[in-house]
Structures are given as structure tokens and as C-alpha cells.
């Protein structure tokens, strides 16, 4: 080991340097308050095997154009802030490695079906209000903290009924990929519908009928045509398409 170590130290920087390649990063720049058209600005960025699209955008901000508008926070696909369209498909910039895109040009745009605030940043106002409308909390008369009551016991099987749907980080990728969201401005959207199922499937919750009443609307659950694109782009395995079809089972009387 001791004999190998100095050689590795000397050779490693050379080896890493030779693996470094570059790509053209095309960033959509648009300020709806002052501009009428979207422009694309190209930057040549070096990257390595693990460089993410977010890393590349931050290189642009640090070295070329500080004004690029981008929202990010955790950089580990937990906060859902950096959703954007990468080479035509919605994805999290921090979760998308440049080396996996197999393209010399990477185009980043704001997500479709969300109003643009600036450059790559979109407004989540409508998605959050749809989410809130579906009462995303346990509705129950009983409380774990009331005197003389016990904790709500759930079996592992009970938990598995809703666990994957509680993984939602509200990144909006599903709403951006949904073909119904593309044309129906009043559609509740796969994000909120999946969250409705998350609480309906939870055996501690007593708000099933309230939620079913909200989604049983002309712009509600019936607008989903099971294209499955929401599940395809979800970075957390939530599978909104499954949640929506299972939720529909309650309204059709297949599930109780």
C-alpha cells in the first residue's frame, strides 16, 4: 500500500484532468416583466463524471453570468426546488448527471405548465393552492395528545398503503409532464391528486368523503387519461398515476 500511495497521488490529478470534457449549456433567459421573447444563451462548461446540471448552472453563475435565475437549495433531490426542463424533459437539475444525458448540448428551460418568474424559476402558487385544497393532513376527531388516548397504531402493511405517496417533495415535475395540465388550466393536477390518495389510504384519516367530493369535479380526477408521464418523471418514486387510478376506484365503487 505504501508503495502505491505516492504514485496515485502524482497520477490522480492528471487522470482526472484527462477525463474532463466540455459541453454546451444552453440556458433559457426570460424576464416576463421586461421582455416579450425567450432567449437562449450558450456557455461552454467543463464537466466530469459526477457533474450535475445544477453544478454546471452554478459554474455559469460564478464565472460567466451571475444574473441567471435559478432556484435550488438542498442539492440532493430532497427539497424539490431545482425542477426544470432538461433537454426537453422535466427533471431535477441536482439529480441529473451531465454524463448520463449522452449529449454535447444541454438545453435547460423553465418547466412547462407553470408561470415563469424569471429564467429557470417558475411559480408554484397554483400547485400549492391545489395541494392545500385537497386537505393534505390527517383529519380525525381523535388526537394522540389528548389525555386518556393512546397513540395511533399502524401495522407495516397499513403504512405501505400510503408510504410511497408521502415521498412527494412538491417539485412539480409531474404537473409539468402531464398532457392534461398542458391544456386544462383548471385541472387539479397529478401532484395534488396523488396527495389526496396519500391521505385517503391512511387508516388514521377520516376525511375520505371530503376529499373525494373535491376531486369528483369536471376539472378533477376524471381529466386524467392515464398517460403515465407523471410517474415516468417523478424523482422520488411517488407514482402519481397509480395513486390516481386507485383513487378513482373509490369513486367508481371498486374500493371501499
Amino acid at each position: 500500500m505504501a508503495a502505491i500511495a505516492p504514485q496515485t497521488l502524482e497520477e490522480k490529478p492528471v487522470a482526472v484532468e484527462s477525463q474532463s470534457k466540455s459541453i454546451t449549456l444552453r440556458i433559457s433567459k426570460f424576464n416576463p416583466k421586461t421582455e416579450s421573447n425567450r432567449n437562449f444563451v450558450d456557455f461552454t462548461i467543463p464537466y466530469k463524471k459526477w457533474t450535475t446540471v445544477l453544478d454546471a448552472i452554478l459554474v455559469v453563475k460564478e464565472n460567466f453570468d451571475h444574473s441567471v435565475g435559478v432556484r435550488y437549495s438542498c442539492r440532493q433531490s430532497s427539497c424539490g426546488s431545482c425542477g426544470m426542463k432538461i433537454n426537453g424533459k422535466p427533471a431535477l437539475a441536482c439529480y441529473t448527471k451531465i454524463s448520463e444525458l449522452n449529449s454535447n448540448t444541454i438545453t435547460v428551460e423553465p418547466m412547462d405548465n407553470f408561470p415563469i418568474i424569471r429564467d429557470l424559476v417558475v411559480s408554484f402558487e397554483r400547485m400549492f393552492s391545489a395541494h392545500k385544497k385537497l386537505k393534505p393532513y390527517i383529519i380525525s376527531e381523535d388526537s394522540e395528545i389528548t389525555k386518556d388516548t393512546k397513540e395511533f397504531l399502524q401495522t407495516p402493511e397499513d403504512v405501505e398503503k400510503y408510504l410511497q405517496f408521502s415521498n412527494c417533495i412538491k417539485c412539480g415535475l409531474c404537473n409539468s409532464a402531464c398532457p392534461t395540465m398542458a391544456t386544462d388550466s383548471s385541472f387539479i393536477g397529478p401532484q395534488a391528486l396523488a396527495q389526496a390518495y396519500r391521505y385517503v389510504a391512511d387508516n388514521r384519516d377520516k376525511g375520505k368523503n371530503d376529499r373525494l367530493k373535491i376531486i369528483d369535479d369536471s376539472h378533477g380526477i376524471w381529466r386524467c387519461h392515464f398517460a403515465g408521464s407523471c410517474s415516468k418523471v417523478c424523482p422520488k418514486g411517488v407514482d402519481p398515476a397509480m395513486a390516481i387510478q386507485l383513487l378513482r376506484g373509490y369513486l367508481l365503487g371498486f374500493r371501499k
Partner: protein
Amino acid sequence: MEKQTNREGIKGWLNPTRYGIERFAYWLMRLTGLGLLAYFVAHIIETSTIVDGKDAWDKMLELTQTTEGHIILALVIGMSVFHTVNGIRVMLGQGGIGVGKPGRPDYPYNKPASLNNKHKLCIYASIGLAALAMLYGLQVMFGV
């Protein structure tokens, strides 16, 4: 205003290649639905010529016996078969049948249970059956 909402609009439907075979099936379902609607309208116009007498009716029938008429009818056969078989798949899925069971998702979360092989197989079968029905229709109409 369109820029403000940033909605993808109808062009979101027009590109079926980005999200796998399920999105392609969605696109084909829409396309065949519109095609069948156009056929039903044309069919009503065609059959309504009977009120103008036998000559008008025979003239209209001759149109369906041309090469173009046969190709259009073969397309109608294909559209009907795909729309029916894929429609049954979608209806079953929308009732929660064959969409998988909720479970603990595992990293890298790229295999959603609802987009499973059963559905993929049904989509390929719908396309295959539509192609076979079209070929059979062409064989009967052209008498090859």
C-alpha cells in the same frame, strides 16, 4: 398571456416520444379517436345520400370501391381495433386493475409500478392486433 401561463398547449400532445410507450399509446388513442370521429361524420354523409335516390347512392358506393377508398377503410379498421383494445386496457387501469400495489419505493425510483410490463404488453398487443386487422382488411378488399 400565453407566456405568463407557460402552458405547453396542444404541442404537449403532439410529441409522443419523450415519456415512453405509455405516452405514445395516449397520443395514438387521441389520434385514432379523432380519426374515428371523422369517419363517423363521413359515414353519416355517405349514408345520407340514399335520400337522393338509387343513382346517388350507387355513385357514393363506387367511391368506397376505389384504391383510396380501400386504404381509408383499412385505416378505419386499424383505428377501431387499436382504440377498442387499448381502450379496454385504459378502462381497466382507470378502475385500479393492473396498476400494481403501493409499496416501499427503492432508489433509483425509476420503475413506477403503474407503468408495468402488463400494460406495456397490452399496448404492443393493441398495435399488433390493429396491424393484423388492417392487413386482413386489405387482403379482403384488394383480393390478393
